[in-house]
């Protein structure tokens, strides 16, 4: 949003502002605009799900939509994990829905109401880190619970030649340990970069229209506006894809933990 001096700061949208000061055991757990939007996302998901909870034999439109989403996650889990994947549907569903709704919530054009700004919770590393750690710790807990120390055989793929025994497990271990970081960073970077790009382009449009030189508006603002439409559509696609990627990777990692290799 526009800064104090009419300058547009594309980073301002990520600023966390405390709305109510809270304190727990010396930790600052203030209710912030980020927390507010987490609750908004939760409320939106609840409204969406509650609309489809009539559980009729012949579903209506809304129920069809809700069943479409749950069926999508169900299929994903049974395709990548197998029949045992059904147990993890609630987790993957929650991750998918939270990311999807948070991404879309950040794209909502509620900024047209003066003084109201959306906040993309998934553009925060602290948030994506929590989601990634939830996903990763589920894999660890399930893996060690089901297989005990045999879980370490995950790092020795079938058919590894003895001559490479010193190298392959190290690479596998590294690729395993990097998973939470890649999960968290992918989502954080994709959402941040997309929103910065949109903000910069929107700044071109606004500043171009406000410019004193008359040629700037058609030469800069108009092309930027056209580009902005395309980027917005692309960003909407990215919102869905990032949620899908996060859910799918979580499903694949759970498959590793449940079935080993």
């Amino acid at each position, binding site marked *: 949003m526009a800064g104090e001096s009419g300058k547009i700061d594309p980073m301002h949208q990520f*600023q966390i502002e405390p709305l109510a000061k809270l304190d727990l055991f010396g930790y600052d*757990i203030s*209710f912030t605009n980020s927390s507010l939007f987490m609750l908004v996302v939760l409320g939106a998901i609840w409204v969406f799900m509650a609309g489809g909870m009539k559980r009729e*034999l012949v579903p209506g439109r809304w129920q069809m939509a809700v*069943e479409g989403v749950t069926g999508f996650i169900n299929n994903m889990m049974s395709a990548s994990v197998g029949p045992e994947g059904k147990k993890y*549907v609630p987790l993957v569903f929650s991750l998918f829905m939270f990311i999807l709704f948070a991404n879309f919530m950040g794209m909502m054009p509620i900024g047209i109401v003066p003084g109201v700004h959306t906040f993309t919770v998934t553009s925060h590393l*602290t948030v994506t880190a929590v989601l990634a750690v939830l996903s990763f710790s589920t894999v660890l807990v399930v893996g060690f619970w089901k297989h005990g120390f045999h879980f370490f055989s995950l790092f020795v793929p079938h058919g590894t030649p003895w001559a490479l025994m010193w190298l392959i497990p190290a690479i596998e271990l590294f690729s395993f340990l990097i998973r939470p970081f890649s999960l968290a960073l992918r989502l954080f970077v994709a959402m941040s970069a997309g929103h910065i790009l949109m903000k910069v382009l929107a700044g071109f449009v606004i500043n171009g229209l406000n410019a004193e030189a008359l040629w700037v508006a058609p030469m800069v603002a108009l092309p930027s506006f056209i580009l902005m439409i395309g980027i917005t559509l692309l960003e909407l696609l990215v919102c869905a894809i990032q949620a899908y990627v996060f859910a799918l990777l979580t499903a694949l990692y759970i498959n590793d933990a449940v079935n080993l290799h």
Partner: protein
Amino acid sequence: MPQIAQILETYASQFFWMLLVFGLLYFGIGKAMVTKIDANVDARDRKIAEDLAAAERARAEAETMVAGGSEALNAARSDAQAKAATAKAKAAKDAEVRLAKADAEISEKLSVAEAVLSKARAKAMTGIESVAAEAAADIVAKVSGAKVSAAQAATAVKAVLN
């Protein structure tokens, strides 16, 4: 970048609220609602499968009934054909018998009539012979004056007639 610049001041709040919200989402929606919706979808799928199976059973039943019906129809038809054939054969035999009987009657009548006829003819023939012999004897007597015995005349007539 506020995400990194503010990380030390905000991480506790972010973690706390994220975990709280995710907990609510997981237990309140993921566990409770999704499970119920899935159960409903499963129940519907099961109902559809059962209905399809019932329809399939009914179809098979109808098919066997159709097969049984056509069998009965075939049996009735062949029965009727057999009956018609026997009736026809019987009628033909009857007609033959009657024909033969009529034939025999006719031929009997014919032979009787023939016998009567031949008898009559023989009688007539003998009548003609005797008349002719008498006439011949008379003619001979008148023409030549010779007396011819009746026997001689008869022999001569017979020789001429036959």
